[in-house]
């Protein structure tokens, strides 16, 4: 875990992609480094600037329609830098609009279908109604993470390409909002050192082991010193409890609808 330079957490276009407290994800990563004696800093990439290839983590957050289109233009112009960074082991973590931009294409607010970055094979189209509320996700077992808790608010439906895996299975809420072939609902995308998700909240303050997974990838270890997360554990218990009540209510409603 010895590094010569501070861990550089890139907050990409916070003015455009910062709708859901996305700065919080950067703050959590930096703090969890510092609390372990690892130097870290937030590097903000201002809208309109090209992405540097020297960051350890690239955070893409949520944004509204026009902002998402502008962010996409800037990111596509920097895709060579992003490829170089990923080749050198950089981590990509993308939320909501950020997740949509990672894919091959997405539908803009006016219905136009625009190119994404194409880092992973997924497509996003507009759906009927917005998915809003608490979400619970059981992450892919290979990640050895505990249940994820978050909040979603998006109109997009994201379909994963063949052979592309999700971050996890949704037990409460909508996530990608498109049923898989086995009928399951999934959230986000999981690839090599890349995670995308519809969960915000922001998601990392509520899910410290997901934050530590990303940091482990950066620092090259899966044995980070545990931190005292008592408050976070209380918050997790509260949010998971709330979400499960919501899930039970939704299932009861569905049963009534199918019966009646």
């Amino acid at each position: 875990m010895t590094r010569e330079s501070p861990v550089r957490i890139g907050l990409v276009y916070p003015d455009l992609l910062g709708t859901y407290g996305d700065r919080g994800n950067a703050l959590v990563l930096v703090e969890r480094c510092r609390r372990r004696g690892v130097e870290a800093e937030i590097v903000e990439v201002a809208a309109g600037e090209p992405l540097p290839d020297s960051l350890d983590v690239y955070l893409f957050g949520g944004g509204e329609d026009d902002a998402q289109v502008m962010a996409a233009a800037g990111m596509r112009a920097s895709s060579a830098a992003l490829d170089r960074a990923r080749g050198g082991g950089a981590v990509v973590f993308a939320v909501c609009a950020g997740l949509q931009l990672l894919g091959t294409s997405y539908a803009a607010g006016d219905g136009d279908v625009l190119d994404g970055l194409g880092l992973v094979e997924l497509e996003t189209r507009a759906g009927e109604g917005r998915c809003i509320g608490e979400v619970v996700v059981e992450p892919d077992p290979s990640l050895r993470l505990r249940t994820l808790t978050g909040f979603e608010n998006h109109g997009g439906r994201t379909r994963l390409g063949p052979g592309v895996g999700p971050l996890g299975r949704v037990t409460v809420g909508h996530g990608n909002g498109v049923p898989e072939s086995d009928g399951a609902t999934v959230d986000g995308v999981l690839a090599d050192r890349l995670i995308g998700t519809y969960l915000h909240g922001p998601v990392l303050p509520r899910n410290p082991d997901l934050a530590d997974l990303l940091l482990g990838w950066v620092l090259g270890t899966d044995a980070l010193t545990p931190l005292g997360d008592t408050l976070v554990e209380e918050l997790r218990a509260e949010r998971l409890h709330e979400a499960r009540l919501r899930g039970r209510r939704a299932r009861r409603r569905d049963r009534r609808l199918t019966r009646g």
Partner: protein
Amino acid sequence: MSLRARVALGAGRAAGWASRVTGRGAGTQVSGRVMLAIAPDLLEQVGSGRRCAIVSATNGKTTTTRLLAEALRSAGIPVTSNHTGANMPAGLAAALGRDPEPRVAVLEVDERWVPRVVDPLAAELLVLGNLTRDQLDRFGEVRSIAVRWREVCGSHPNLAVVANASDPHVVWSVEPATDVTWVALGAPWRSDAATCPRCAALLDWSADTFACRACGFAQPDAPYRLDGEVLVTPEGRIDLDLALPGAWNRMNAALALTAAIAHFGIDAERAAAGIRDLEMVSGRFSTRRLADGRDARVLLAKNPAGWTEVLRWLAPTDTSVVLAVNAHLADGRDPSWLFDVPYELLRGKPVAASGERALDVAVRLDYGDVSHVVERDPLRAANGLPGEVVVVASYTQFTHLTRGSW
């Protein structure tokens, strides 16, 4: 007034009274709903024959409304106003119905309702402050409100507008209006205005002004301008010297004074004198007596921009602070905005995380290195903190605290 309208007003008052004595509400909204159900054109009737000014904004509309009303009163003009903050058609009807005499009405109107009340009220003036993100689950709201305001401005050539030249969304909304007085209030909150409202390119921000290189959309020249504590007018500089706290109230005052001076022709010094000593505006500030006899000040903060202004004001003081946050529909069901607000400004103060979402607040404070205690009941939290206490509350916390139902 028609018989039906008079019956509606009477029935509305009775419903409002019943609602107040049973403690279910401040009364005004309920009575307004009853009135509108009985006489749907009531707004037209209670507004007719008056000069109506409409004040709207995401933040500060209650205060701006009160300040404009006071500025007019200081010049001897009798004014009626919806001073309780009931700002949708039902509330407007109730306020106007209660007070049939004054010829001038200064009315706070919810941003989304502006287009629908301009015609029934035959409004002559729109006073527009700012448009920022409010409750997060109302996605795309800033844009859709701007579109609707723009339609109103374009389709009412006789409607005068006094508007904030420093807010890109407001400027875009007001562009098609023919009679505009701009006042530059400065732009302390830019996070919701990264892209050009006209062409969606990135906006260039320098110091306090914006411009779009792609399409030429830019901040208009403003004859009125807020410069620190001073409102600069074409006739000279006016010291605001307000009793109301904070930079945001200087912005509200500058907007209200510009409307009073430019539209109503009130003498600038006289208008300023009329608002200088105002200490409290209902709907935004209040006090609660604590168990130990101290009084805690209670402030409403509805969105990231509002929270940021309040924290900047608190930072240099030595008060204790309770942060009381809920996440009901009226608060925004998603408290992720907690991470958009610089709570780090509170480092070193006695702080309590409170409200139904006390744990979300606590985790936010923890990651910001702000030491704090967790106590869900805000009054108990306030009682446990030393010295002067300010409770900053989200919407439903604020209404609970000021209605005294804890």
